[in-house]
């Protein structure tokens, strides 16, 4: 593995560790329902501060179940990851193509180069 790939892997490993550590250390154990969404907690806080507050607008569409919701979240992540992968794949392909073209060009370069030089000398004379 190149030094570059090692650094990238290390970055991913730290991110994974940051996500897994709270779970492994049981940092949600003090809660009735550990690791719920912070948004939900904010809603609870609002009802504590203003018990009379009623949300005055409901979402136009609400996923009918937690499963459908996680499917849509997965879709969102997949769409994003797909576009990112397309971008980097395309770039890599282009670079490889250019490198190959350059290599092929190099193979012919000595002959064509000297021919070109001879031509320019000839036309100059």
């Amino acid at each position, binding site marked *: 593995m190149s030094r*570059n790939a090692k*650094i*990238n892997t290390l*970055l*991913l490993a*730290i*991110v994974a560790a*940051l*996500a*897994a550590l*709270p*779970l492994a250390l049981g*940092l*949600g*154990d*003090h*809660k009735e329902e*550990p*690791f*719920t*969404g*912070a*948004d939900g*907690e*904010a*809603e609870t*806080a*609002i009802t504590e*501060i*203003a018990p009379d*507050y009623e*949300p*005055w*607008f*409901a*979402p*136009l*569409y*609400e*996923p009918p179940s937690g499963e459908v*919701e996680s499917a*849509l*979240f*997965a879709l*969102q*992540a997949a*769409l*994003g*990851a*797909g*576009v*990112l992968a397309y*971008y*980097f794949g*395309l*770039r*890599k392909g282009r*670079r490889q193509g250019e490198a190959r073209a350059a290599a092929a060009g190099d193979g012919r370069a000595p002959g064509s180069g000297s021919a070109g030089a001879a031509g320019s000398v000839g036309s100059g004379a």
Partner: protein
Amino acid sequence: MHIAEGYLPPVHAAAWGVASAPFVIHGVRALTREVRANPESTLLLGASGAFTFVLSALKIPSVTGSCSHPTGTGLGAILFRPPIMAVLGTITLLFQALLLAHGGLTTLGANVFSMAIVGPWAGFAVYALLRRSGVPLMVGVFFGAFVADLSTYCVTSVQLALAFPDPGSGVVGALAKFGGIFALTQIPLAVSEGLLTVLVMRLLVQSSKGELTRLGVLLQGGAEKEAAVR
């Protein structure tokens, strides 16, 4: 982090909408100008939006025992400047509000303000400041993305504290409460976002040197040390 549908009083919802609209309109103009002037940047624009899509779909456990998600807005702000990120962030927020009942249409203005305006601007400001003082590219990128993420959640806390001041301790008390829920949870996630943004930037330096130079992220001629990273 998005404030849920209906959870801001109508006056607050409208005020945040009015505050956000000029930024988004200005952003749409900047985006059209960029695409017209440099059609080839469309791909990288798409990739920046895609990064926000992925990161804001990832709900990650945090130290407070709850889950939250990064925003992914630092990358686009550094690459294309904050106005364009206002548009990309708004698109992400619309998707989540319409399809996932995450965030909402009435709270869209407030959520756009925190995630698509303040986050990108704060992150970009920190990035630009660090870069100007001669800090290496990747360090600037890390702190830019970190600040973009964390400032978003701080603004959300302020927005909720303004709408729901604590009966006893007022706005400050409410801010402590919402900050404890959002900002504290977000610190390790902001670190994760910083690291992931560095990762993507490293891949971009590897694959898209020309584009990064044109955008001013890498210096002309590749004299910089980071530019030599292969």
